[in-house]
Structure formats: structure tokens, C-alpha cells
């Protein structure tokens, strides 16, 4: 075979793999949702869309819009303060701001539930759209913060300085800076909107009925996957339209840029506002990070409740307070005993999954950045916009057949789930790193006679290692905490940490659930710490 043809075939293999393993099940399930008894029909869609569905869709849209807007505003504000001003302790503050990103929204919901319970004795106030929105804002604000701070850092300070020569700082910020970061702002909004509108774990936990919970119910309670897909298609269409409208700015925004080089901006002096702004930032962090953790810890260390209090027919969070309970390690021991059998499996799946994701992410990003083959970017984006539940349903309906049983009944299906969900993230992060490396470095190696593997291993990989490793950390932690897809697809005997908690919810005391979440958070933060130390001390920063 011709050498060129071999090269082209080899470079197309990863895309082919992704399309067959991830895209095909989705295409299949959508096609099937238009059939009944072998003939084409719209009956599932006609049956699914009635007044109640539209009310749910409207509620979901309002909630997602509010979450996206507020999270983007918060992220932009703190992103600007951290990247562009002389705000004290900006490094540690940024790390703390990012922590919620590594915690599943569900865990944050449990933690806030515990805190509210400790504060007011019941958690009824959490059974509302506002509470769901608050948790999602806390969870997703780090995403705009990352995107916006990278975008602010990318702006050439000369542009700002040219403005300052003719007008005030305020006016320069308004007329020069803001228009330049507008694409990143809109991209952040769209990204958070998509995540928020398909989020299912928090509304389920707070007993708030939204469209994603209805989809989940159709599948799990009635096993009516066609109705679930029909309902989910509204979210898919909405997300895809938004993405296509924002296509260029979203793909070009410095999404999760790590290790930005050569963009030393002159910091804005906050003057007398320095400490008031620091106070606002610390207060926000106390609410978002400290309070949930304290609440969770207090519940986790609470003495085991007597049997009569475990009555699950009582309202959520109900606990008669006549009897003061002390503190002990009981729940933590029990929680650990329950989680122990799945910890190793979870770590292993997350490790293998994130490695595969980063490998595929690199290959896709390379083709996009260097060969300017962009269609895979859009495909990854489209898959990212599909709600997790729909994706999970697609995987099990597609792989649940005799010939594909080896996937359906094994860890493969979980890995495919991870790949489908997070390759977009890895591809964008690694793509940002590749973009910062001049192509001439590889061309110089090519002229020296280095083949693709040598060029990758000796030239490109060491230069993007920092970004590659950051992508690995993010994907590893995301895989470890992934719940919405995993809970639909996990095969018998393959329950993972988040699934274990979700499935224990209805037959386990609240304190034990808190203890389990507390253990998972400890594990996550310890792993993050270890990975951060590896990155800081063992991954050399290259001066370009």
C-alpha cells in the first residue's frame, strides 16, 4: 500500500474508534426512538411532549440560564481579580476557587444538606429549584473562572496601555478589555448552561422535578427508553443549537488553558479596594468550600443514630432533636467498610479511563491544531452536549446484545462512558498546550530525519507534558467522581464509588452517607495533592 495512504489510515483510526464506540450507540438510540414494531413513527415524541413536559423544559431552561449567568459572572469577576490585579494570595485563592470543580455536584449537595441540617434542624428549604441552582453555581463557577482568567491573561497589555493613554482605567476596561473577553464570556455561559441543563444528581437528591429527572425516571422506573430519548432530544437540540451558534468562540476560547506562556500582563493595582475585595473572595470561599466541608465532617463524625431514627418514611433530613447525639468514628469506619471493596476498582478504572482519554484527546487535538482537521472538534463538542443519562441509555441499549456482551458486562462499557464524556475536555486542554508550541520545532525535527514517533516522544511530548499531565489530573478526578452516566451503565459487580453512594442513599442513615462522601472527598483531595506535587516537582517547566 502507498505510504501516504497508510499514514492517512493510521491517523484516521482513533476517530474511527471513537465514532464506532461512542457516536454509533447515540445515533442508534436516536434512530430507534423513531421506530415502533419496525416502522417509522413519531408517536414517542408526540406522547412525550405535552403541557407538563413543556413546563419542565421551561423550568430547566430558567434554572440553567440562571446558573450559567450567575456562575459566569462570579467566575469572570474572580478570574479578573486573580489574573489581572494585585489581589493578595491570588495563587492559593485560585486553588481554593478551583476545588469545587473536582468535587461532583452531588457531593456538594450532600455536604450542603448536612450543613443546613445542622443549622436549622431540617432540610426542607433545600427541596427547591433555588437550592439546586445554588449548588450548581458553586460547582460550575470554577469553569468560567478558568476560561476567563486565561482569557484576561491572554490579552496583550499594550492594548490596554494604548487605551490608558487616552482615557481612564474604568473606561479602558469597559471599552477595550471587556469586548476582548466577550467570546470567552459567552463560551463560559454556553458551557455552564449545557452542564446545568442536563445535570441530574442534584435535582434528584433535592427532590426537585426537572426535565433530566423526568428522563431518568422514564428509563429507570418505567424502562421506557424511547420516551426517555424523546424527552432528552429537547435538551440535545437546545444544547447543540447553542453550541453551533457559539461554535467559533467556544472552540477558540482558551478552555482550561494550563501553563500559559509569555503573557506577563502588568497587574492592575487595587489600591484601597485590595482588602475589601479579598474579604469578599474569602467570604465566598467560606460559603463554597469551608462550610460544606465542615457540615459534612460534623455529620460524618456524628454518633451512629439509633434504629428508630432510620425511618426513611420521615421527611428527608428529619431528626428529632430531643436526644443530643455525640461524636464518634463509627460512621467513618462503617463507610470505609462499605466503600473498601470498590475503591481499588474505581481508582483503576479512573486511571485507565483518563489515560485513554488523554491519548485520544492528544490525537484529536494534534489533528485539529497541526493538520487543521476540525470536524472531530465539533463531534466531541456535540457528544459533550448530550445529557449524561441519554448517553448512558444509548450505551446500554446498544451494547446489550449477545455479540457485544463482553463490553456490556465488563468494565469496557464504563471506560467507553468515560471516553465519551471527557475526551472533549482532554482534547481542548491538550490542544491549548500544542497551540503554544511552534510547529517549526517539529518541522526542524522532521528535516533532521525524525519520524512521527520520535518527533512526538522527543520534541512535542516533553514540551506539552505540563498541559498533558494537567489534562490527565482533571480527567482522572472527573472519572473518579462521574455519576450520571455510570449509574445507568455500571454492570453487575462493577459498582464504583459514586454509584455505591447513590445506591446506598435509600437504605442507609444520612450520617453514613455523609461519612462515605467525606471519605471520597478525602481520597479525591489526597490524590489531587499527590498529583499536584508530582506536577510541581517532577514535571519540568520549559522556557520557550
Amino acid at each position: 500500500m502507498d505510504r501516504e495512504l497508510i499514514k492517512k489510515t493510521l491517523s484516521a483510526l482513533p476517530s474511527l474508534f471513537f465514532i464506532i464506540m461512542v457516536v454509533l450507540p447515540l445515533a442508534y438510540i436516536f434512530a430507534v426512538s423513531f421506530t415502533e414494531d419496525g416502522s417509522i413513527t413519531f408517536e414517542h415524541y408526540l406522547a412525550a411532549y405535552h403541557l407538563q413536559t413543556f413546563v419542565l423544559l421551561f423550568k430547566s431552561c430558567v434554572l440553567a440560564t440562571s446558573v450559567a449567568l450567575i456562575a459566569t459572572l462570579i467566575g469572570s469577576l474572580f478570574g479578573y481579580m486573580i489574573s489581572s490585579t494585585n489581589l493578595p494570595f491570588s495563587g492559593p485563592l485560585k486553588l481554593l476557587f478551583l476545588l469545587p470543580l473536582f468535587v461532583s455536584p452531588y457531593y456538594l449537595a450532600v455536604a450542603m444538606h448536612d450543613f443546613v441540617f445542622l443549622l436549622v434542624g431540617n432540610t426542607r428549604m433545600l427541596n427547591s429549584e433555588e437550592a439546586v441552582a445554588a449548588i450548581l453555581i458553586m460547582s460550575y463557577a470554577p469553569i468560567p473562572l478558568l476560561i476567563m482568567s486565561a482569557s484576561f491573561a491572554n490579552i496583550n497589555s499594550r492594548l490596554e496601555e494604548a487605551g490608558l493613554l487616552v482615557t481612564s482605567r474604568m473606561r479602558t476596561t469597559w471599552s477595550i478589555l471587556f469586548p476582548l473577553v466577550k467570546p470567552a464570556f459567552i463560551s463560559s455561559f454556553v458551557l455552564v448552561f449545557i452542564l446545568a441543563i442536563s445535570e441530574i444528581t442534584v435535582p434528584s437528591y433535592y427532590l426537585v422535578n426537572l426535565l433530566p429527572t423526568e428522563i431518568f425516571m422514564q428509563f429507570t422506573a418505567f424502562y421506557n427508553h424511547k420516551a426517555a430519548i424523546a424527552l432528552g432530544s429537547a435538551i440535545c437540540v437546545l444544547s447543540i443549537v447553542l453550541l453551533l451558534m457559539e461554535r467559533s468562540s467556544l472552540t477558540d476560547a482558551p478552555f482550561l488553558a494550563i501553563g500559559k506562556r509569555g503573557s506577563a500582563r502588568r497587574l492592575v493595582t487595587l489600591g484601597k479596594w485590595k482588602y475589601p475585595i479579598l474579604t469578599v473572595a474569602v467570604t465566598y470561599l467560606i460559603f463554597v468550600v469551608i462550610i460544606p466541608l465542615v457540615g459534612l465532617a460534623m455529620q460524618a463524625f456524628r454518633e451512629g443514630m439509633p434504629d428508630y431514627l432510620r425511618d426513611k418514611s420521615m421527611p428527608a433530613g428529619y431528626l428529632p432533636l430531643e436526644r443530643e447525639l455525640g461524636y464518634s468514628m463509627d460512621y467513618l469506619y462503617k463507610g470505609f467498610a462499605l466503600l473498601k471493596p470498590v475503591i481499588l476498582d474505581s481508582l483503576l478504572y479512573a486511571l485507565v479511563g483518563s489515560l485513554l482519554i488523554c491519548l485520544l484527546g492528544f490525537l484529536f487535538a494534534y489533528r485539529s491544531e497541526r493538520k487543521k482537521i476540525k470536524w472531530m472538534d465539533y463531534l466531541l463538542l456535540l457528544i459533550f452536549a448530550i445529557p449524561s443519562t441519554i448517553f448512558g441509555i444509548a450505551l446500554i441499549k446498544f451494547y446489550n446484545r449477545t455479540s457485544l456482551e463482553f463490553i456490556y458486562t465488563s468494565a469496557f462499557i464504563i471506560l467507553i462512558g468515560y471516553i465519551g464524556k471527557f475526551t472533549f475536555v482532554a482534547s481542548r486542554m491538550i490542544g491549548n498546550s500544542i497551540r503554544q508550541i511552534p510547529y517549526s520545532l517539529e518541522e526542524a525535527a522532521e528535516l533532521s530525519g525524525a519520524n512521527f514517533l520520535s518527533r512526538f516522544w522527543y520534541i512535542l511530548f516533553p514540551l506539552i507534558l505540563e498541559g498533558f499531565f494537567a489534562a490527565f489530573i482533571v480527567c482522572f478526578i472527573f472519572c473518579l467522581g462521574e455519576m450520571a452516566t455510570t449509574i445507568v451503565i455500571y454492570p453487575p459487580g462493577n459498582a464504583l464509588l459514586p454509584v455505591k453512594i447513590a445506591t446506598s442513599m435509600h437504605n442507609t442513615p444520612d450520617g453514613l452517607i455523609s461519612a462515605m462522601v467525606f471519605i471520597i472527598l478525602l481520597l479525591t483531595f489526597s490524590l489531587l495533592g499527590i498529583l499536584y506535587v508530582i506536577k510541581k516537582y517532577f514535571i519540568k517547566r520549559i522556557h520557550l
Partner: protein
Amino acid sequence: MIPIQLENITHTYDSKIILDNLSAKISEKKITCLLGNTGSGKTTILRLIAGLERPKSGKIYINNRIVTCGNEICVPPFVRKVGFVFQDLALWPHFTVLKNISWSLEVTGHKDASTIASSMLETFGLSGFEKKYPHQLSGGQQQLLAIARAMAPSPEILLMDEPLSNLDNRIKVRMLEKVLEIKEKFNITIVYVTHDHNEGFHIADDIMLLNDKGKIEIFGSKKEIIESDNVFVKEFISISRK
């Protein structure tokens, strides 16, 4: 022997014509300077010769051997025996000065890569900097390192893409002398791209002036160019002088 021959080369970027049916023969063991305005296709010609890009149509010969035929690369870049000095120098930032030179020899299986690299460093006055990294060198030293790396595998042709554009005038003059020295010492064909006609006239034996329509306006010796009545040539030189 004709070291480089371009035959009816047409090249486009996004349907914009960069080179339009361009033909030329580069003389052996001479410095040929490609002059022209920004976007006139000078760098593209170098990249086509090196095999880093494919033309839309036409043929490229190196030492009378066809290396590119239409959209097809018949001889891959590393077999063409060309050295390339990139405009941004493309020094590998994570390799030491010595490794920057020796690595390109190692990948092609040179057994005495380190020895050759050390001798190249000596030739280019970079001895003592072996363990430094590129960012620890001055601009002029980085330039020398880029040329040393390109020369290490003993190429027959050296392609230089505006290598001195980021240097101040004082160092630029010294570097131009160095390029002339290299030509004499290694007895090599050099194709040198610049938009600065002073730089070009300083070192070139032959000059190829490209117009803004992807064609060669004039190609000849320095003397022929200076004495030419061509309006474009006169304008280019006078604008450059201003």
C-alpha cells in the same frame, strides 16, 4: 549540476494564489537571495524546496532528481540533504545546546553524533555553552546555534528564512559576515530569504525578486538587478532604502 530547479510551480492558500506558474534554476555553490514584500511567497518557496509543503502543481528538482511532483512528495524532507534555518530559529527549548545539534544526528543513526556536534559548536564559536539551554544564550548565539544545527548533518543546500530579522543592526552585520564565511568554508549552495534589500545585496551572488502576484519580477546577478530598468525593481529598492 543544478542544485535546485523549480518548474511551473503554482501554490495556493485557501484559493489565494501565492505562487503562479513559477520556474527558476538556482545556481550551485552560490548565495541566492529571495527578495520581495511580505506575502510575496518567499518563505513558501523555501518550504516547498525543503518538502515541508506541497505545491498545487509543478515539479521541484534537487540535484537533477525530482523530489516533488505536483501534490506528491517523492522524496521526503530528511532525504533531500537540505539544512533549514527557520525565522523563529525553532531551537528545541528542552534540549541543551549540545543536544540541539547531536539529536538531529542521533535520529539518523550517526554513531559519532556527540563528536560532530562538539566540533560544530567549536566552528561556530559556541564552545563552553554545551550545557546551556537555548534561552540562556544571546540572540546572536541562538542564531549561530540554529545555523550550526542545520549544518551538522552536512547538507548540500542551506535554506535560511529571514534568520536575522530579530537582531539589531550591529549583530546583523556580524552575522551576515558569518553566513559568507559558512558559504566559503562548507562550499555550499545557500538560498536566503529576506525582505530587507540591504541584507540581500550584502551577501547575495544572485537575487530573485518576487512581485505581489506570485511571479518572479526579475532573477539575476546583483549587477543585473541594480542596472535593471524594471519599474517594480526600482520602486522596491527605493522604498526599501527609505
